């Protein structure tokens, strides 16, 4: 699939094997509005689905849907991001960008799942939390933090399926699970490629480069150990055969429910904690402590002495930067 897009993209600039273009084609595929979202997938996956609404504090967020489902006979709580498939629905669903109410509804549903001994299935497809004023002032940061926190201790199995965009903290609010699954053409990143480019390249036009640098594709994320299972997409991508896509997801999800369902709640929570606890590599320098003094000449010399051999030398940066004075 990506190859096909790549060829099209590559033909335009005569570089069929440009890795940056390949990744960008993948990003566009993950964002394809025709891709099946939570409700479309549930149509195929669930024997029954009863959508529930509202966060009980403020409102109902149409960008996150949730409810009770029977999937392959298993009573399940399903929570997922919901983009629209056309302009009208997209406007109604705020382009799938959630407000804090969405995460508070999600937490309400997680708590329900725990009390009634139902596993949780989440579908993740979001560029990020809504960046506007309403979301900020009602505490989008608090909503995400609490949702992530609740998932780290929820005493029932949680399976996450990233179906399109796994964008930043907004995605993470529903993406902490015992198993994290991703569809082949999905992406997962700490910030949207556009946001990354705007900050690090100071130009949104470098988003292709940013996507490449962040290793956003599902398979790259699997190699990094962030994603556990990548599900191949049928035909030309999930949107070309949603029924088959749903069937493949259902098979994996039911298998994972079964595996995690064998554990006691204590074992389950411990295992989930142990899964995320080691994520993110770091090194150990030989020097036990960081140099205590404020920078200056001594700090500069110490920096040279303490430098890790793994860090290449960049002579241009050797000069001691100005001390910790505030910007004026």
């Amino acid at each position: 699939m990506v190859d096909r897009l790549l060829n099209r993209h590559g033909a335009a600039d005569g570089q069929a094997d440009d890795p940056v273009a390949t990744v960008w084609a993948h990003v566009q595929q993950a964002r394809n509005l025709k891709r099946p979202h939570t409700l479309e997938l549930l149509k195929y996956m669930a024997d029954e689905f009863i959508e529930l609404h509202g966060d009980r504090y403020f409102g109902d967020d149409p960008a996150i849907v949730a409810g009770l489902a029977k999937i392959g006979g298993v009573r399940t709580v399903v929570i997922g991001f919901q983009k629209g498939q056309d302009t009208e629905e997209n406007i109604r669903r705020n382009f799938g960008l959630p407000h804090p109410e969405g995460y508070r509804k999600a937490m309400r549903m997680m708590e329900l799942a725990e009390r009634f001994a139902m596993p949780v299935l989440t579908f993740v497809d979001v560029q990020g939390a809504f960046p506007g004023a309403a979301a900020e002032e009602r505490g989008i940061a608090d909503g995400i933090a609490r949702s992530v926190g609740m998932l780290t201790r929820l005493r029932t199995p949680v399976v996450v399926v990233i179906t399109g965009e796994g964008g930043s903290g907004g995605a993470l609010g529903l993406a902490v699970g015992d198993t994290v699954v991703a569809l082949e053409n999905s992406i997962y990143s700490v910030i949207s490629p556009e946001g990354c480019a705007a900050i690090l390249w100071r130009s949104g036009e470098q988003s292709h480069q940013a996507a490449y640098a962040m290793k956003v594709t599902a398979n790259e994320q699997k190699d990094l150990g962030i994603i556990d299972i990548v599900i191949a997409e049928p035909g030309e991508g999930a949107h070309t055969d949603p029924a088959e896509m749903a069937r493949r997801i259902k098979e994996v999800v039911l298998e994972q429910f079964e595996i995690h369902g064998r554990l006691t709640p204590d074992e389950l929570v411990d295992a989930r904690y142990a899964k995320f606890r080691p994520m993110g590599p770091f090194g150990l320098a030989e020097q036990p402590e960081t140099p205590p003094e404020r920078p200056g000449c001594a700090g500069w010399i110490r920096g040279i002495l303490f430098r890790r051999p793994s860090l290449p030398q960049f002579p241009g940066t050797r000069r001691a930067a100005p001390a910790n004075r505030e910007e004026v």
Partner: protein
Amino acid sequence: MPVRLPFRPRRDAYPADLWTKCPGCAEMLFNKQLDKSLRVCPHCGHHFRIPARTRVAQLIDSGSFAERDGNLQPVDSLAFVDLKAYPDRLLAAQLSTGLRDAAIWGPGTMGGRPVALCVMDFFFIGGSMGPVVGEKITRAGEYALAERVPLIIVSASGGARMQEGTYSLMQLVKTMGIVERVKAARIPYISVMTDPTTGGVFASFAVAGDVNLAEPNALIRFAGDRVSAGTIGEELPVVPRAEFWLSHGFVDRVVPRAQLRDEIIAILSMLIPPSVGGQAESAAPPLARGRSILSAITGALGADNSGESRAVEAGQSRGENSNG
């Protein structure tokens, strides 16, 4: 005003190593004086950003901080290159700050009470949180949990570190995981948000304190200007600073720097029951099986332990602990 000599160029009137211009009121401030006032402008109250070690020295009992895990070193696991290669950025930050990454943590005492303190440093790549920062916060929390001492985290961060990709994002999970466990164990967690506290740091441990404190005028927000560039969404009518969050219910108290240490000590003394059983009690869970609720109310957590051996002298800047 220093005398301006005719043969000296004008820009030398206020050498940058001696003077700092206040962005709040444009006064020229003598650096030594500014350090004495905890780097708060004596004219307008502007709170300057301060390095992590300075913050530690301002908060902790003098000489009681013992830095842990100072040897944790960031790695370039994605071979990340933007306008600069990531190792280049790391090296520059390490040389200019004397830190290996954007946070330091260690046990220490505040008002004689043992605590686990983790402080972020905005001068190290914008205080961004990658695996090392996340690990230090998590280890501070694990120490608080094991030793049953309060957890105090001072945030100063632009958010998750993009150069370490989703590994940085996973630090939100790690840190919230330990915060949940600290809170479940009835160990106090005080979050102090300083200028700035944004992005994934605000949206994880920083917003999740039992008590959230913030320094005056500190910028605190989830979505940054440049993050939301290109996406829809109207701007907030005001820049969301500490006082905004106080009125919106996400910050408990806005505390000037000069009172921060005393306020933290006062809050801890409220949350932690007084000791009845002496020093050994500090290691016992307050609601452990077999103990009555009354004993938990009257005894336990975090008794005073003067002369604690683990609180050894560590390298911190001298003369900055002017809270006494």
